[in-house]
């Protein structure tokens, strides 16, 4: 029967090519607009490390007390980064499977060749467990060891890009690189690694950035050589002493912190540990308030930090509005088309077709319109995704891409939405009274 309905539908669509084209265009444009914005939305709200995001957690500790609250938009959350004192204390206690405090640095790297200008690079000062925790992919070598951290060794992990620039892409493990005027031994070279959003340090990158981290050095080493923080610093009160040393003694927050906890039980134990830590601080008189800590997994953390830009969300809302307009429009046109054929329906009903057969026939027709609209929508989505870098910021637009998943989704949205739009027209068509239509008028 399906073949017959498809044949009927194609004949009927051919009979009024203008109306058919109109419907296909409407569905195509509506679907394409919403799919392009959705692809951007999906890219920015995507999971940067899907295989592990449920095990990565970001602890937050209330180290400011009431001073940090009462501002606009305050929701009672503790500060979203850490001060030096607490970050170091948590590192020392070492309660999670993996953990790392980290801060953003922008040292200058001096190429070994004489006459070449130094280059500014971005990077992070981290602990050794940062690499296994984030599954950073190594091309050569590996991260440094716990004893390197303890000895504050002058070692570095560099990006493939920086390796290309400094060593022409060769295996540079064991070679020396000049960072801020001091020699560091390269222990590892990363493969291209640009997770979006930059999940390990969203408070400094805002989530999306085109600048990749080019260099990683041991946290305590960076502190020792006074490599100052180049990320955000947020203070509830003015530091008593100036400079980077003063920052370390202050309650200002400038350090990101991430831990890996493999099970819910471990997460619960870690949260208890955080609360215990805060209570201990309260007892010792450093905190004069009860514990107010958070331990969010990566998803909840990205959500709480509003990593998805509001522009993108608004665009998606507008595009959904457009899709709705297109659907109502298609419903109207389908109704016009179906009701024009009351005679034909009357004849079919009179010679024995049940209502369900009429339903099937017209839903097939709606489906074909939807499918054609979907194919057109696919083409337009492809064009749109290539054009999106023209209208959206580069760091965001680069993330949008067409893949099989989006391809299928486009077709499904087109067909399902058109069939939804076709339900009422089909219902009306199936209600046609055969006797009335058979009478000559």
């Amino acid at each position, binding site marked *: 029967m399906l073949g017959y309905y498809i044949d009927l539908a194609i004949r009927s669509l051919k009979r009024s090519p203008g109306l058919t084209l109109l419907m296909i*265009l*409407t569905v195509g444009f509506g679907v394409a607009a919403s799919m392009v914005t959705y692809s951007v939305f999906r890219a920015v709200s995507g999971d940067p490390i899907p295989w592990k995001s449920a095990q990565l957690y970001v602890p937050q500790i209330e180290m400011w007390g009431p001073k940090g609250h009462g501002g606009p938009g305050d929701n009672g959350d503790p500060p979203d980064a850490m001060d030096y004192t607490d970050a170091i204390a948590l590192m020392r206690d070492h309660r999670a499977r993996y953990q790392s405090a980290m801060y953003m640095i922008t040292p200058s790297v001096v190429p070994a060749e004489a006459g070449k200008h130094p280059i500014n690079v971005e990077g992070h000062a981290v602990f050794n467990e940062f690499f296994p925790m984030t599954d950073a992919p190594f091309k050569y070598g590996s991260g440094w060891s716990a004893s390197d951290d303890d000895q504050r060794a002058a070692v570095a992990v560099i990006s493939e890009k920086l390796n290309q620039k400094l060593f022409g892409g060769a295996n540079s493990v064991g070679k020396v690189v000049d960072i801020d005027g001091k020699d560091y031994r390269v222990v590892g070279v990363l493969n291209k690694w640009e997770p979006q959003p930059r999940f390990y340090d969203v408070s400094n990158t805002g989530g999306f950035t085109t600048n990749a981290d080019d260099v990683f050095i041991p946290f305590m080493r960076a502190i020792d050589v006074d490599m100052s923080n180049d990320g955000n610093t947020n203070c509830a009160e*003015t530091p008593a002493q*100036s400079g980077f040393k003063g920052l370390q003694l202050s309650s200002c927050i400038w350090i990101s912190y991430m831990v890996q906890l493999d099970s819910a039980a471990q997460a619960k134990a870690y949260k208890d540990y955080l609360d215990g830590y805060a209570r201990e601080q309260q007892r010792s008189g450093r905190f004069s308030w009860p514990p107010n800590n958070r331990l969010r997994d990566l998803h909840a953390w990205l959500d709480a930090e509003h990593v998805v830009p509001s*522009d993108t969300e608004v665009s998606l809302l507008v595009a959904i509005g457009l899709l709705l*307009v297109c659907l*109502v429009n298609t419903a109207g*046109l389908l109704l016009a088309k179906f009701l024009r054929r009351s005679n034909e329906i009357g004849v079919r009903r009179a010679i024995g077709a049940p209502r369900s057969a009429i339903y099937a026939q017209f839903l097939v027709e709606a489906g074909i319109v939807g499918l054609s609209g979907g194919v057109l929508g696919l083409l337009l989505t492809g064009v749109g995704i290539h054009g999106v870098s023209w*209208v959206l910021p580069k760091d965001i637009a680069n993330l949008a891409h067409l893949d099989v998943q989006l391809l299928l989704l486009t077709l499904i949205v087109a067909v399902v939405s058109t069939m939804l739009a076709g339900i009422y027209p089909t219902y009306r068509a199936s209600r046609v009274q055969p006797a009335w239509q058979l009478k000559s008028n």
Partner: protein
Amino acid sequence: MEIRPIVASLKKHRIPAVLIVLEIALACAVLCNAVFMVHQCIASVNSSNAIDEAGMSVITVGGIDASQAPAAIVRDLAAFHSIAGVKAAAAVDRVPLDHDVWLGSYSATPTEAGWINSSIYFLGDGGERAMGLRLLQGRYFTPEEYAGGAVGADGKSTSHVVIINESDAKRLWPGQNALGKQLYSDETVWTVIGVVADVLAQAPDFSGGTGKYSSVFFPLRPDVELGRYVLRSSPADRDRVLAQAMRALGTLEPGAVLEGHAYVDMRSAYFADVRGMAWMLTLVCAVMLAVTALGIVGLTSFWVGQRRRQIGIRRAVGATHAQILRYFQTENFLLSTAGVLLGVVLAVAANLYLVRHYEVGHLPWSYLASSVLALWVLGQVAVLGPALRAAAVPPVVATRSV
């Protein structure tokens, strides 16, 4: 034109009528909000900024040691002044719209009541001329004030003088002359010696609504804080001057990391995403209006086709072309009116949602009014074709059996 027969006929075709009304309503709701957001985007892209944007170039200098910086600044500025076409050059710590933000809270009283969050700008000697600030009242810093200015351990200026934006002068001392008044930040105090036309914040979207035009200027002697050089020339000379300055710096400071831009490019880069958003919304509006118009054409054509016989009868009993034409036009006007009424309600509801969840302002009535007008016109234009076809139905149709 008699409306009753039209209403009676619409009542018989309730669903197609409802669909047209719904489509116009949705289109109206999306249009109002999208156009309003486009307007907000354009307004922020075109934000005025009282500095010499067209003639300014900015060179960011990194990697100079704090102890070397003062000497380097004096040396570099001397080199810049010898470049032909340079009208002024100075070292500053930050420029508007470069994302590098330094905010502080300031108030007119020591109690912090009514404090405002301002972008802090430290200017090196001649900074006001290099940026092209526009003095409205008072004076600029003297060479002595420049030479005496420093940044204290708490990050505040140790100088005792400050220049403020016009907007801040009005906000802090409404109805009074700001000159000579005391500006507080916690316990520290400065005397306002000058008021300049509004300079944009370092990152207006970060500073929020009131912070957009809230800037304070302090004098600073050559210091490592002054990490940017501002060169001012005529717009025609700008690119050559920038290239020459970059070359001069390359030889003078071989260890430094340099980044030079014409200020207009920095401004355009800052607003790139806002501009993109405006384009996208415009595109969506255009597609939506086209879809709505085509939908009206489609449904009305169907309607006309269905009613050919009735039209024929009306023509046969004496209705003129013009009367048939007007019938369909009036019918469309009634449907559009119902659509836009519902649409206005939806638009306001959508706007309230956006205001609550995103940084969108309240929708002014003028946008509702112009969207309503636009959809009325769109409806009339769309219906014209089918209506003309209806008017062309000959009276003889009435006599034919279908």
